[in-house]
């Protein structure tokens, strides 16, 4: 059974002096138990609105949502104890120290004080925990936000851009942490604009645009579905090889010192064709599509920032 499931969620924002804007236009989302699920989309595609609806911070106009088998937001109180979340920039009371902010949250939920120290240690913020949050860098606030999300030892983690503001080492640590949590059975819904990060750590992905799902499934399946079926061939005599393949009726092109043959499912036929002309490839491989390419193609918003 999915841990998070949303069907036909709609949310329209009324704007003064402007026409209403549909942030979610019948969005569907399914996140199975365990692992890391990427949630991708261009700016304004409805990612954060969807997460806010799931967490009861925004009220959808229509649709059905459930988490851990309970309809939300109606039964959110029953599942919130198992749900950790970090939405956009973390929201802490700036004049308080990082430790005090977490202590107050822990006290309210009767979480032992030792857990505060443990999560501070986990995000490597113990040394700065007694400094006021208003003096924190964006990266430190982000770490504190992750610590707050982990405070409840959740079985579901909803994270919106958790790597925002982190340095490369911090981003790597977060990536490793999320992967480890996903492997340990925690279900993570990760909204991120770092497509390389998503491709590295996510098992499944949902790509949205204009408040609707464009594609969803295992990352490998999504990449496979966007594969053009092209094969790249490395040969020393590229001119004769290109002539041989063209003569045999293949759509071949010389690209960056190698030959790309479009629309071929099996590379063996290429090898056979070239061998018939006494040309032997030094390497042959299918042309891979990465998540960034797939994303840009699917969202049709290549010119817009992610």
């Amino acid at each position: 059974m999915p841990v998070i499931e949303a069907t036909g969620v709609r949310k329209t924002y009324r704007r003064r002096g402007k026409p209403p804007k549909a942030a979610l236009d019948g969005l569907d989302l399914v996140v199975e138990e365990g692992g890391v699920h990427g949630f991708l989309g261009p700016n304004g595609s409805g990612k954060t609105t969807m997460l806010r609806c799931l967490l009861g911070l925004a009220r959808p106009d229509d649709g059905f949502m459930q988490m851990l088998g309970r309809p939300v937001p109606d039964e959110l109180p029953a599942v919130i104890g198992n749900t950790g979340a970090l939405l956009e920039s973390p929201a802490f009371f700036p004049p308080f120290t990082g430790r005090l902010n977490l202590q107050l949250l822990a006290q309210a939920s009767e979480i032992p004080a030792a857990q505060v120290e443990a999560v501070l240690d986990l995000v490597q913020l113990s040394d700065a925990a007694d400094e006021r949050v208003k003096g924190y860098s964006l990266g430190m606030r982000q770490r504190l936000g992750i610590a707050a999300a982990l405070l409840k030892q959740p079985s579901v983690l909803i994270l919106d851009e958790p790597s925002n503001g982190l340095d490369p080492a911090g981003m790597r640590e977060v990536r490793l942490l999320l992967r480890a949590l996903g492997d340990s059975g925690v279900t993570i819904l990760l909204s991120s604009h770092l497509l390389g990060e998503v491709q590295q750590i996510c098992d499944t992905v949902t790509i949205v645009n204009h408040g609707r799902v464009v594609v969803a499934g295992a990352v490998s399946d999504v990449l496979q579905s966007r594969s053009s079926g092209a094969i790249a061939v490395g040969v020393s005599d590229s001119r004769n090889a290109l002539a041989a393949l063209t003569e045999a009726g293949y759509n071949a092109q010389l690209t960056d010192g190698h030959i790309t043959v479009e629309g071929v499912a099996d590379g063996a036929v290429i090898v056979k064709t070239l061998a018939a002309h006494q040309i032997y490839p030094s390497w042959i491989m299918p042309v891979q599509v990465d998540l960034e390419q797939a994303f840009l193609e699917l969202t049709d918003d290549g010119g817009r920032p992610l």
Partner: protein
Amino acid sequence: MSIPTLDRRPTHNALPLLRSEISRITHRRLFRVLALILLGGIVVVSVFAFFMHSKAIVEDTDLLLKRQDKAAQIWQICVTQVPEGAPENICGDDPSEQSLGTFARIDDRYKAYEALPVAVIGVGIAAAGVAFIMGASSGGAEWSSRSMTLQLLFEPRRLRLLVLKWLGLVISLVVLAAVAVTVALGLGAITASVRGTWEPDFALVDQLQDSFATELALMGARALVLVAIAATLGYAIAMLVRNTGASLGVAFVYFVVVENVVRFALSRYGTEPFMLSTNAAAYLFPGPIPVRGEREAGEFSFESEIVWLSNLRAFNTLLVYTVLLAVPAAWSFTRRDVG
């Protein structure tokens, strides 16, 4: 790297959340500064009152002679500066020829039955001001820092969260006000015992003469209720406008502009009994206070008259204003999206 294991799941009980909210309020620097100003102000005023008063009504002869000498010196200077004519017309009679009793000051004693009720009224109004500022600041700061959003990720039942946050605020401020009233009364009692009198004849109003302690306790209790009302008003406005500055601005415009305009320009229409500050004063004062109202003088005509505002009537008016602001604030918080 792994997430630490919890011995037990997080709970959603009201009491821990309430305790956390009280900690949240009392850890705020503004709360501590305002508490220091309030309590420090009480101590300073009390010390000043202590040294301004004197136990003795009849002053000793040496002191009276000194005052007579000083007055005579001033009279002499005055006389030399008067060009001609009778100097007594300008400088008065020669002090050296007046009786010593003329130089005795009026009764300087600290009169407990008069001063202590005044102290409770003063502290009550000051504490209510602190409560309003804290209420507006608490609500506004949580919206501007978005820490309210974070809290909703731990307690998504909005009305419950709001009520417990409000309760935490009110408890913190009522305790502060109780301490302030106690300190003011304690220091006042010391001053009355050392440099004053407990004679009922000096009571601020007659009803204090018969049951001073009870009336004083009731005044203190009303001061705490007023503090709760002020905190609620400040918090409710902040929850509606979601900004501290705007909340304080609304209060400034109301108390400084609206009330004064209404009081001076429209009081003939009998508006005075509906002013917040008038009702706050009437609620604290021991017994009804007279304000300008209106009464029906004939068909479609009214004329002004004195209206006596009792504690109960003042409380009811304050309660209506509080409900009129708190209900929309709560409704708005439970319905509106949170950013």
